[in-house]
């Protein structure tokens, strides 16, 4: 069998009529025609490979871009923002010369196909984004969504995902400090595996993805490049260029956390010696992405010799090398006189490093293979000038009926026995039950800086040992609320994460998001997306917390059925001294329990409506961002001044969920009374936003009340920390042992 001649730029110019498999690679006809127009000729196979991956939905945000612009346009002014949207991750000033970078990304589709590797490489990818900014990764968080807890496939997907996150993150030495686990039948064929990471650096260590300075060397380092993670390239390779090759390669990448750990240490050592001009990790679209982004963000062009890329499989074609998503690789731009030292550090850590090219003074990205030029493009056209779609969107015709199906009309418990039974039913339901079976598979101690970890309201990491400076992160999202009203749902996700950060005593600073939706080609889904983005951008503006970056995951649907719109929002906060943090657990008997905020009859999308009635309808809780801001200020002040000893945000499951969690964690019970103006049912199960439960030492009661009164935050005394049971006066008593069995037994029974 003879090899087809190398498809060089020259060859492409001479053979304009050669048919290329653009459709198989996922390009639309007009997109392909645009490539031809840009180049003034047909693309080579290698160029087609690059454009097709870089112009994919995943890399180009072509459907979401027009909406995402609002995050920039409506961005509130923030002195804390050092690097905003567009880089590998946003960077926030947390004071004392420290900067923190954080980001949340999705790895949904791979995790359904191959749960362990899909989830593991999700962690690997987000961590490389963090190191690419110049920061040492200090923690990870994992917001997860699975199908129904009792569905047989959940037992395949969940343990694999959890083991993959643990297997990778634990091996990297990153404490897992937060996240969520939510079950809903809507995620049955489309689990959501979002992964977030935080990194810490000094201000002067911020690095950006750009290749500047003609003559500077481009160094590829980390794992060898293999055939994993290639989607369309196999088609390209087997159909067009060489029939004799192995045709189908796995589309899910395989991770090696040990290699990544070495990559982290060697990258940080290179940063420390100031050897790096620009840096980019190799994630989606691999070398295509790294070379085109580095080149287009810099001042010059770039020339790369693909033959120099270390390969795991010597039969790979140049197109495959460009598209491979092999994990644990990074690309650095280094001045020529520093190359030797850079390579020395890589050698110290047993990391393979190879000079594969250099920055030129031109403006083209040129890639060579076997002496022939196979790519000659303006890198901007690959990295930034992808197609932009104004996809049609329309409020779905079922939305009115859904909102009219009011949850306040559902049958409520009529007797004390019913009320008690529903409390047990709620706290033992899969979504409200303890997730410790899952979180105990993650290391939350490593690095020795973990102040708070799940099931606390937010994870908290000490940044400076001497001063106690720390950062907190919370991730939240409620797909049920967003289904009822995507605009409000996105705002409620932000409100909850913002509140969770404040509950632990930290001041919310900035936002990252992971927007998980169905197909953008469905106008109803596109409307949900547009509404959610508009809601989130508006709320971020009002709360003064800019979006610093994030990720969009579309096509989360099976057939015509999309997942609930699921915007997951991460809020990062700062605390001056972690010694002032407020935990969830009740600390001391006799302390007074106060409910902060207003409690209304709001049950639309609530956990109660799901658990007791399997119902989703009506409207989600009312959003009040000014109230959220006031509540946060009170919680932060009270924590700083030592007025509260424990605090818990109220969200899904309402007050009773919070009381039970605080009681079980503190191993102390509570006696509650129904305050005037409320009924027992509403008190326990309402999900009104802008609320928190706090425990106050008696000596601080007056001062706390005065502060809330002066600032206009409604507070209600609802009970006292006491005994070894949770009692609602005149209604029921549940011992902590009973509650523990209900709350902690569910998940192991389903999954262990």
């Amino acid at each position, binding site marked *: 069998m003879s090899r087809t001649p190398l498809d060089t730029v020259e060859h492409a110019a001479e053979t304009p009529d050669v048919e290329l498999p653009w459709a198989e690679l996922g390009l639309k006809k007009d997109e392909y025609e645009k490539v031809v127009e840009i180049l003034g000729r047909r693309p080579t196979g290698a160029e087609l490979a690059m454009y097709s991956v870089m112009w994919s939905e995943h890399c180009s945000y072509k459907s979401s871009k027009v909406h995402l612009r609002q995050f920039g346009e409506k961005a509130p002014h923030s002195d804390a923002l050092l690097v905003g949207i567009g880089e590998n991750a946003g960077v926030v000033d947390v004071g004392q010369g420290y900067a923190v970078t954080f980001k949340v990304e999705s790895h949904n589709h791979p995790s359904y196909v191959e749960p362990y590797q899909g989830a593991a490489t999700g962690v690997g990818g987000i961590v490389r984004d963090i190191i690419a900014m110049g920061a040492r990764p200090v923690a990870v968080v994992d917001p997860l969504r699975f199908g129904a807890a009792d569905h047989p496939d959940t037992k395949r997907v969940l343990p694999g995902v959890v*083991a993959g996150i*643990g*297997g990778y993150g*634990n*091996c*990297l*030495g990153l404490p897992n400090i937060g996240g969520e686990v939510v079950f809903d039948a809507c995620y049955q064929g489309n689990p959501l595996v979002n992964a977030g990471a935080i990194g810490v650096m000094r201000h002067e260590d911020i690095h950006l993805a750009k290749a500047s300075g003609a003559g500077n060397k481009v160094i590829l380092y980390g794992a060898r490049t293999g055939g994993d993670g290639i989607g369309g390239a196999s088609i390209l390779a087997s159909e067009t260029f060489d029939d004799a090759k192995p045709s189908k390669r796995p589309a899910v990448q395989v991770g*090696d*956390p*040990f*290699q990544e*750990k*070495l990559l982290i240490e060697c990258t940080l050592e290179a940063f420390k010696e100031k050897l790096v001009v620009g840096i980019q990790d190799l994630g989606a679209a691999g070398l295509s992405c790294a070379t085109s982004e580095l080149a287009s963000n810099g001042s010059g062009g770039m020339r790369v010799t693909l033959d120099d890329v270390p390969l795991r499989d010597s039969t790979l074609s140049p197109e495959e090398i460009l598209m491979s998503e092999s994990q644990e690789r990074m690309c650095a731009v280094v001045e020529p006189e520093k190359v030797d030292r850079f390579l020395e550090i890589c050698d*110290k*850590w*047993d990391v393979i490093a190879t000079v594969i090219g250099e920055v030129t003074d031109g403006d083209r990205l040129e890639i060579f293979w076997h002496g022939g030029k196979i790519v000659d493009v303006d890198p901007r056209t690959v990295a930034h000038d992808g197609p932009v779609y104004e996809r049609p969107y329309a409020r779905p015709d079922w939305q009115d009926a859904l909102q009219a199906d009011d949850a306040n009309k559902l049958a409520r418990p009529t007797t004390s026995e019913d009320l008690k039974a529903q409390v047990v039913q709620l706290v033992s339901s899969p979504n409200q039950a303890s997730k410790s079976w899952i*979180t*105990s*598979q*993650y*290391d*939350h*101690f*490593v*690095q*020795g*800086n*973990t*102040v708070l970890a799940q099931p606390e309201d937010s994870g908290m990491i*000490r940044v400076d*040992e001497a001063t106690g400076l720390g950062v907190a992160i919370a991730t939240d999202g409620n797909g049920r609320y967003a289904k009822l009203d995507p605009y409000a749902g996105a705002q409620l996700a932000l409100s909850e994460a913002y509140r969770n950060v404040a509950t632990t005593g930290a001041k919310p600073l900035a936002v990252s998001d992971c927007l998980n939706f169905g197909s953008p080609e469905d106008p109803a889904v596109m409307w949900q997306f547009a509404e959610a983005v508009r809601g989130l951008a508006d709320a971020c503006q009002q709360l003064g917390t800019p979006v610093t970056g994030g990720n969009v995951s579309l096509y989360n649907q099976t057939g015509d059925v999309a997942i609930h719109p699921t915007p997951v929002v991460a809020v990062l906060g700062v605390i001056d001294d*972690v*010694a002032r*943090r407020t935990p969830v657990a009740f600390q001391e008997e006799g302390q007074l329990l106060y409910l902060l905020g207003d409690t209304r009859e709001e049950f639309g999308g609530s956990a109660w409506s799901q658990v007791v009635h399997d119902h989703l309808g009506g409207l989600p809780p009312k959003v009040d961002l000014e109230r959220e801001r006031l509540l946060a200020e009170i919680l932060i002040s009270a924590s700083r001044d030592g007025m509260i000893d424990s605090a818990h945000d109220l969200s899904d499951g309402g007050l009773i969920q919070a009381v039970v969690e605080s009681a079980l964690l503190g191993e102390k019970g509570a006696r509650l009374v129904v305050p005037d103006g409320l009924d027992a049912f509403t008190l326990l199960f309402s999900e009104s936003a802008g609320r928190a439960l706090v425990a106050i030492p008696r000596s601080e009661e007056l001062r706390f009340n005065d502060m809330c009164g002066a600032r206009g935050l409604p507070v209600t005394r609802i009970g006292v920390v006491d005994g070894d049971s949770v009692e609602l006066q005149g209604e029921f008593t549940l011992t902590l042992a009973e509650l523990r069995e209900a709350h902690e037994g569910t998940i192991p029974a389903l999954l*262990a």
Partner: protein
Amino acid sequence: MTARIGVVTFPGSLDDRDTQRAIRLAGAEPVALWHKDKDLKQVDAVVLPGGFSYGDYLRAGAISRFSPVMESVIEQAKSGLPVLGICNGFQILTEAHLLPGAMLGNNHLHFICRDQKLRVENADTAWTADYEAGQEIHIPLKNMDGRYVADQHTLDELEAEGRVAFRYVDFNPNGSLNDIAGITNAAGNVVGLMPHPEHAVEPLIGSGRTDGLPFFTSILKKLVNA
């Protein structure tokens, strides 16, 4: 004067910097040691920290045991150098035959991270003198391969000679034989355990207890008073 305690960094070590911090908090001077370097820099004691050295490839600790630094550690441990192996460090010590037995995968097949209750069984080693025999402490545990096993003869010998240094109490987290969490060699200078004392040295951090600090004050006192 204070003691200089070396902490070895292997490729894939994770708790090396945490261990250095614990040594510092105890009042001793931490000294970084590198796996490729035979030179122990004249330290007074060595800690092999937790992590996944060499990715746990082949078997946990199996490759690290052959690293240059271990040649020196093995040699000097035999002539009395105090050595503490934590988690992966314990695994390396068994692979190096400085301690008997071996570690298998947890009996439930999951990674487990929890605040673990232990009983100090032997308070006469270089690393446990600041505890009292029979004292119950809480130390974080986090591992995939923590199930201690040994043949019956070895177990009998460990028990008879009081060389079980720590035992799991209330809950055996990994199926270790005789609930063994840590052991010592006959001379008492080499100790290995699966739980992580370096994660229990500050009241605010991690488990929120300081039950692990006596490991580091024990060795410091021994070295300074020597």
